[in-house]
C-alpha cells in the first residue's frame, strides 16, 4: 500500500498547479470565456509546450506514457482552476480510443500532431431521442465508409479538427470512424454550456469516414471509464477550491459584529463539506488506479467512484453557495462557477443514479 506520488508525479503536480495559478486566475478565465470559441488558443499551445497534451499517450507513439494517476494529478489541478480547455474530450476520451483501438498507421498519422497541439479530436456518440447514456449507435448509420446521422452533446466539438464518430454498420454493430470536421457534408454547431465548456451538435450527410477496427461500443465504454475517472479527479480539485473559497469567506464576512465563521452551524457545515471532499478524493484515487484492472473490476470501481463523487459534488457545490449568501449566486465571483462546473460533472458520462444501476447490475464491488 502506497498513496505517495513518485518524484515525477510530484513534479507534474507542481508544474500543472503553477501553470493554472499563473495563467488561469478567475479574471483571466472570465476574459478568455468571452473570446471567440470561448477560450484562448494560446492556452492550448502552452499546454503542448508543457507536455500536458502528450501525457496519456504511449512513448512509442510520441507521448509521455502517463497512466491514470498522472491524468488524475493533472485533472485535479484543472478542476481547481475551472480550466475550460477540451482536455477531457480531446486527450482523455479521444486519446484512450486512439491508444486502445487505432491502427499503427492511424496513430502515426495523428498522435504527434496532437501532442504538439496542432490537431484536436472530439468524440461524437450521443444521439438525439436516444437513451441519454447509450454507447451503441442507433440513428447514425454507416453505408460502407460513408456516414449519415446526427450527434449531440459533443464536448469540444466546436473547434475540433477531426471527429471520432460512432455509427451503426451494415452488420448492426457499433463502429467508430474518423471524420474530417472540414469534410463536405459535416455541419457543426457549437453552443456555450453553462459551465463554460462548449458542446456541439454535429450533422453528417453522406460523409467520408475511416473505420477504426473493433467493437466500437467496447472501445467507447473504456474511453468513458477513463473520462469518468478524470472527471472524478477534476471534481476533487473543484471541491477543494470551493471549500477553500468558503472557509476564507466565513473568516472574512462579518454579520452581527462577528465573523460568520464563529457560528457553529456554519462550522459544522464546512466540516461536512470537508468530509465529503475527503471521501471523494479517496474514490477518485480508486478510480484512477482501477483503469489498469480487468474490465469488470474497472467498470465496477469507476461506477462506485462516480456515485460517491457526484453526490459529494452536489453537496459541496450547493453548500458553498449557501454559505456565501447572495454573493454565492453572482456571476462576478468564482464560487458560483465552481458550483456550475460541479453540476456539469455530476451529469456528464452518467449521473449517480446511472452508475448505481450499473454497479447493481455488476453485482456490487468485488470483496
Amino acid at each position, binding site marked *: 500500500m502506497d498513496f505517495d506520488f513518485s518524484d515525477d508525479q510530484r513534479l507534474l503536480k507542481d508544474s500543472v498547479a503553477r501553470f493554472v495559478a499563473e495563467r488561469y486566475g478567475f479574471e483571466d478565465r472570465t476574459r478568455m470565456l468571452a473570446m471567440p470559441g470561448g477560450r484562448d488558443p494560446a492556452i492550448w499551445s502552452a499546454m503542448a509546450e508543457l507536455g500536458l497534451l502528450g501525457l496519456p499517450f504511449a512513448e512509442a507513439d510520441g507521448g509521455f506514457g502517463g497512466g491514470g494517476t498522472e491524468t488524475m494529478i493533472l485533472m485535479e489541478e484543472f478542476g481547481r482552476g475551472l480550466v475550460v480547455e477540451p482536455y477531457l474530450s480531446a486527450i482523455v476520451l479521444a486519446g484512450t480510443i486512439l491508444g486502445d483501438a487505432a491502427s499503427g498507421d492511424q496513430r502515426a498519422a495523428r498522435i504527434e500532431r496532437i501532442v504538439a497541439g496542432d490537431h484536436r479530436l472530439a468524440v461524437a456518440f450521443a444521439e438525439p431521442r436516444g437513451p*441519454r447514456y447509450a454507447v451503441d449507435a442507433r440513428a447514425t448509420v454507416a453505408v460502407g465508409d460513408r456516414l449519415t446521422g446526427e450527434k449531440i452533446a459533443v464536448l469540444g466539438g466546436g473547434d475540433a479538427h477531426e471527429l471520432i464518430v460512432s455509427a451503426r454498420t451494415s452488420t448492426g454493430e457499433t463502429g467508430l470512424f474518423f471524420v474530417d470536421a472540414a469534410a463536405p457534408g459535416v455541419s457543426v*454547431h457549437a*453552443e456555450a454550456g453553462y459551465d463554460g465548456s462548449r458542446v456541439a451538435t454535429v450533422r453528417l450527410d453522406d460523409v467520408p469516414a475511416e473505420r477504426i477496427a473493433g467493437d466500437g461500443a467496447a472501445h467507447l465504454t473504456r474511453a468513458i471509464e477513463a473520462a469518468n475517472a478524470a472527471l472524478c479527479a477534476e471534481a476533487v480539485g473543484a471541491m477543494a477550491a470551493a471549500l477553500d473559497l468558503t472557509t476564507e469567506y466565513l473568516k472574512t464576512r462579518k454579520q452581527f459584529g462577528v465573523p460568520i465563521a464563529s457560528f457553529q452551524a456554519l462550522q459544522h457545515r464546512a466540516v461536512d463539506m470537508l468530509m465529503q471532499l475527503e471521501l471523494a478524493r479517496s474514490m477518485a484515487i480508486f478510480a484512477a488506479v482501477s483503469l489498469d484492472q480487468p474490465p469488470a473490476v474497472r467498470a465496477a470501481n469507476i461506477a462506485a467512484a462516480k456515485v460517491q463523487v457526484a453526490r459529494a459534488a452536489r453537496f459541496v457545490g450547493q453548500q458553498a453557495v449557501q454559505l456565501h*449568501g*447572495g454573493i454565492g449566486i453572482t456571476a462576478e465571483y468564482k464560487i458560483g462557477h465552481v458550483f456550475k462546473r460541479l453540476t456539469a460533472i455530476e451529469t456528464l458520462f452518467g449521473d449517480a443514479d446511472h452508475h448505481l444501476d450499473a454497479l447493481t447490475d455488476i453485482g456490487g464491488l468485488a470483496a
Partner: protein
Amino acid sequence: MNLDFTPEEQAFRDEVRTFLAAELPDDIRTAVADRTDLTKEQIVRWQRILNARGWAVPKWQPEHGGCGWTPAQKYIFQEELSLARAPEEFSFNVAMIGPILQRFGTDAQKAKFLAPTANLDIWWCQGFSEPGSGSDLASLKTSAVRDGDDYVVNGQKIWTTLAQHADWIFALVRTDPKAPKPQMGISFLLIDMTSPGITVRPIRTIDDHHEVNEVFFDDVRVPAENLIGTENRGWDYAKHLLGNERSGIARIGLSKERLRWARDTAAEMAADGRLTPREHDRLLRDLVEAEIDLKALELTQLRVVAADSGHGGEGAGAAASILKVKGTEVQQRMTEIMMTLAGPAGLALPDGGHGRNEAVEDRWLSAAAPYYFTMRKVSIYGGSNEIQRNIVAKTVLGL
C-alpha cells in the same frame, strides 16, 4: 378531524379554475411551464387581468380591493394559480408595500399609491439589504438626514430584485445613528426611482440573468411626506412586512405544479425513448418521495390555515420558519429532479447558439439548469434557512 375542504370551498376552487382556463394567456402559461423568463410586459399584463376580475390583491382590505376571503379561500386561490401555471404573485406590490401602506400609511399615501400599486401602474422594489447588512439587516447604514421638507439619502442597497423595472423603491434608512439599539434608528421611506442621484447597477447571476441590482443613493432628496409612519420606527413596520406571510411562504402550489410537470415530462421522455424504462421507474420513485414530503408540508400548512381561520388546532409552532425551511427544501428538490430529467442535454444554455437539435428544442431543457441555479436563492433570501433555524431554536425550543 376532517381534512376535506367544504362544498363551498370546492365550488370556489371551480370558479377560480374556470377563470384561469379562460383568462390566462397562452404565452404566459408556456413561459411559466418551461421556466423561461417572463417579460415585464407579461407580468404587468397578468396583474391587470387579475385586477380586472377583482382578484389582484385578495388579501388587502376590502375598501382597497381585497376580497374578504377566508384563509382557506386564499390558500385555494394561490394553489390554483400555481397549478394553472400563472405567474407567482407579484410580492413587492401585493404582499409587501400594499399591506404596509394600508396599515401604516397616511390617507394621502393611500390615495396616491394603493390603486396604482394593485394595477401594477407603479412597480415597486424592495431596498432593505446592503453589502454589509444581509442577515444582520438592522446594521444597515444608508442614511437619511432631514433637511427642511426633505430627507437627503446617501448609501447603497444591494440584491434589489428587478430594480431595473421599478418606478418606486421602499427602503429602510438610518435616521438616528445614535439610537441605543440599531433597530431603533431606522425609518421606512418611499423613494421615486427617477429622483436625481439614484444609480442602478445590474448584477449578473449564475443563471446568466439580470434579476438583481445594486442601487446607489447620492444626495437623493426625498420629500418627508414619503415617510411611512413615525421616524425611527421603520424596523417595526419592516418586521410586520416580513412576518405577515404565513400562508404563502412554502409555495406549495408551485411545487405541486412541478411535480405534475415532471411526471408528464418523464412519461413523454419514456415514450420517445429518451428515458429507459429503468430510468423512468427510478424517477417515478423520486417523484413519489418528493410527493410525500410535499403532502406532509401541505398538511402542516393547512393546520396553520385552519388555526388562522379559527377551525381548531393551534397551528405548528413558529409556523412561518418551519414552512419557509421545508418549503424551500422541497422547491429545491424539484429543481434537482428537473435537472435529472434534462441530463447532459441540459448543458447548453438557452441562447447558446443556433441550429439546435430536436431534443434541445424542448425549451425547458435549456432552462432547467438556470432554474436550478437561481433557485439556490430561496434558501438564502427572505431570512436564510440558517437564520430560520436560529429563530425556531430560540422561540420554540427556548435554546
